[in-house]
């Protein structure tokens, strides 16, 4: 118990440090960005016709008149109190913008995460067990093709097939265009999430499957599987009793570690499908110099990724008897 508390405490401190580092890095990058927020958001022509006083007002709105360090400190002071500022683009509190976008994205991310995790695991196990046979070659071939296909290209392909040619699925957005929020049904949301989730899953599967396959091959060649064979255990029983048990641990870690990849992939995919999620908001905030929003988004994604890894560690401790009983954490 004491040990677990210590573990949780250590990780909490680590997370705070990580978030601080991420916020500094993001801020530094935005400050160094060549994009002039005034030109980008107001437009060259409009800017030219404005009076100096108007420009001054805009400058202070976009925060360009203060030195970056000062701005960062101001932001950090507020953030520590839980106030992440107001999005310059959406003119709403950053937290509420993120809440809306995140709930849109989560829908996508969770579906893709579960599908790619389960299918990837299944395919990886099959490929590893039947190494070198047709099933393995099929899975490997699929993974290698997908791994060398850019996610946005795949997204466009799916769009072409399902939305343009077959016309069975909507082209973009997360809800039907021009519909009242209250009129949107769950089914609508699902229909809009299918293609982006599919793209993310298809790309996610290959990574999980290849890693699981690697592990599975190692296990099938391990001394304990050899010994089980030497004791007359049949292939099915070996997979069930020994291989699955041993591959589950690395697969679990991989699954939680893959959160970062799915989130990374979602930025591109949401862009292609104009899916109004966190990824798209991140792109908008970045190109539009919406510093408060960008900071909020990077922090929340960093925290999600960190939590994923943290949960993986916790689960490891629960599942792996060597850690559970030995109290060793590596």
């Amino acid at each position, binding site marked *: 118990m004491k040990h677990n508390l210590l573990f949780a405490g250590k990780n909490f401190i680590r997370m705070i440090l990580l978030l601080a580092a991420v916020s500094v890095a993001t801020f530094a990058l935005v400050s160094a960005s060549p994009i002039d927020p005034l030109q980008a958001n107001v437009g060259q022509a409009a800017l030219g016709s404005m009076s100096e006083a108007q420009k001054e007002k805009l400058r202070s709105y976009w925060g360009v008149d203060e030195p970056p360090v000062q701005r960062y400190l101001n932001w950090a002071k507020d953030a520590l109190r839980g106030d992440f500022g107001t999005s310059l683009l959406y003119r709403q509190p950053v937290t509420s913008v993120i809440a809306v976008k995140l709930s849109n994205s989560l829908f996508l991310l969770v579906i893709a995460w579960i599908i790619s995790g389960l299918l990837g695991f299944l395919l990886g196990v099959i490929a590893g067990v039947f190494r070198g046979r047709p099933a393995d070659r099929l899975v490997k071939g699929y993974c290698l093709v997908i791994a060398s296909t850019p996610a946005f290209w795949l997204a466009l392909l799916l769009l072409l097939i399902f939305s343009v040619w077959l016309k069975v699925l909507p082209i973009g957005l997360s809800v039907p265009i021009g519909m009242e929020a209250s009129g949107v049904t769950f089914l609508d949301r699902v229909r809009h999430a299918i293609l982006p989730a599919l793209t993310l899953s298809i790309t996610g599967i290959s990574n999980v499957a290849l890693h699981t396959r690697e592990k599975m091959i190692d296990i099938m*060649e*391990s*001394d*304990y599987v*050899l*010994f*089980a*064979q*030497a*004791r*007359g*255990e049949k292939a099915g029983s070996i997979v069930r*009793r*020994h291989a699955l*048990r*041993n591959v589950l*641990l690395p697969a679990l870690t991989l699954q939680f570690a893959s959160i970062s990849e799915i989130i990374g992939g979602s930025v591109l995919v949401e862009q292609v499908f104009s899916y109004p999620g966190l990824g798209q908001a991140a792109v908008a905030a970045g190109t539009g110099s919406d510093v408060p929003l960008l900071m909020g988004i990077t922090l929340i994604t960093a925290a999600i990724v960190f939590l994923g890894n943290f949960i993986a560690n916790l689960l490891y401790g629960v599942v*792996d*008897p*060597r850690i559970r*009983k*030995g109290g060793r954490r590596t």
Partner: protein
Amino acid sequence: MSCTGKRHILEIDELSVSFYQYENDHSSRQVELPVISRLSVSVHEGEIVAVVGSSGSGKSLLAHAILGMLPYNARVSGQMYFDGELLTAEKMKELRGNKIAFVPQSTTYLDPLMKVGEQVSQGRKNAARRQRQRSLFARYGLEKDVDNKYPFECSGGMTRRVLLTSALMDEPELIIADEPTPGMDLALAKKSMEDFRIFADEGHGVLLITHDIELALEVADRVAVFYAGTTIEEAPVADFASEETLRHPYTKALWRAMPQNGFVPLPGVQPYVKDMPQGCPFGPRCSMYSEKCQGDIPMQRVGCATVRCVQYKGEPLAVEAHHIHGETAPAPHHTKT
């Protein structure tokens, strides 16, 4: 067959094993690494046959070859017979865990994520097997709480005992034990050897792999001496009473190296597969080395023993001729001239 005229349980004839490996990290050319060459050894009913030899002489590989546990890059040639029947890969799958039991050399042969009790009994559900596992554990001083331990929680000696009990679970004809005793305390090592003796006396066979020649002489009926991937002599334990009754220069050197026989070490080391000498592998260390030793040296039968050395003239081992008859009319009790 042998001087005892007993039934062969296991007979291995000119077994060769080689590994195919890439020459180095940057090359796509594969080289063949012969690790066992033309090895012959046999186990009769009622016998404990000890396989002795220094580290790297191929003892574990022999066990793995018999059980069909070699890695995929290994090539095997030669014949193996079990109860007079040719041991094919298919046949082996039928026999292992049933007629042939194996005690592996190291802890890594246990599933790290399964409790040892469940591992030995191969399942939780079968009450009879559970009970048998418990009584075997008890016999080897493994308390009830050991059943629920994971391999990482067991000491080296405990693991040995767990591995040993796994071989005693079923009622095999043959036990192949790869270094079963290191790490066990003396009393338990003795007990395990007694159990092997009882098992053999019931008409079964034991192939006991060890590098401890004294242990081998204490419990075995015959000793097969390995050197650089092959048997150089197979002799009854009685022949180890004096240097004169032994045949091969290496066996004699092993004898002289024993504490009670003068403790004279043999200079030099066993050659590694990559730089195996031409002809007799023992040549570079042999004081009797002559030109004749450079050629191919067959295994020969001399009295009740077999030896691979040009100094001896005996009859060749002719296992195949014998077994061709054995296959058409499978006779469990055949004799060989």
